């Protein structure tokens, strides 16, 4: 994993991406207990993405750069040192803001950034798959979230309805 982070940091140093943060399952593992997750979700600003003539999104600049380092695109990501890394452009406002409010952590000797627990929970709630909702609940129960800050994020990014439904379903104070 450290080597993967070093590669992503190098992408930033080389100007391929201007910023990034780890979200998704691996960020949740940072705050919670470890569980099975297949890939590493790396959120990047939309400015890192190329748009073709037809207006279609392309991660070609990222894939070309990684290919030059010997890492090939597989399935929906790039295989870097035995990790499937997915680069996710921040199309959603909550993702975009999460990139501005990251936590810097150290993995072995290498620094990286991950979503704060409040933004991670908000993004998982937005995503809304059953496994995401389980993680939202686990983050709340972990006591690692500032619930006032979380509720503020929810309100500002149009997630109130999803939150209300979640709170009712799982008996959490909305």
């Amino acid at each position, binding site marked *: 994993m450290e080597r993967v982070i070093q590669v992503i940091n190098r992408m930033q140093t080389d100007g391929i991406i201007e910023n990034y943060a780890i979200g998704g399952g691996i960020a949740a593992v*940072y*705050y919670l*207990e470890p569980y099975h997750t297949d890939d590493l979700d790396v959120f990047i600003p939309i400015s890192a993405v190329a748009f073709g003539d037809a207006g279609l999104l392309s991660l070609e600049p990222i894939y070309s750069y990684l290919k030059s380092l010997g890492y090939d695109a597989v399935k929906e990501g790039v295989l870097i040192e035995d990790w499937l890394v997915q680069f996710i452009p921040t199309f959603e406002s909550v993702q975009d803001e999460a990139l501005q409010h990251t936590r810097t952590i150290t993995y072995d000797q290498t620094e990286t950034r991950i979503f704060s627990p409040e933004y991670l929970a908000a993004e998982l709630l937005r995503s809304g798959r059953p496994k995401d909702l389980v993680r939202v609940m686990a983050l709340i129960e972990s006591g690692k979230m500032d619930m006032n800050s979380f509720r503020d994020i929810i309100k500002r990014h149009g997630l109130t309805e999803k939150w209300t439904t979640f709170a009712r379903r799982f008996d959490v104070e909305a």
Partner: protein
Amino acid sequence: MQPGDLDLSKMTLEDLFRAKEERRKRLASLPFEEKIEIVKKLQDLSRALAPIRKANTERVASKQSKDSHQG
């Protein structure tokens, strides 16, 4: 609790939930690097089980197909 102390016949459902919660907290407090090692092991396990899972899925699909033709 020591491994020798475990007496399943005396365990209640509450004990089980409490033990599960304690285990979850213990795992959550591990260093991130150790957690990632566990994730890697789970990925390896999942990969090793994939052919068995696929074979089972195919067996069930085949059985269902046969059943629907016969039924």
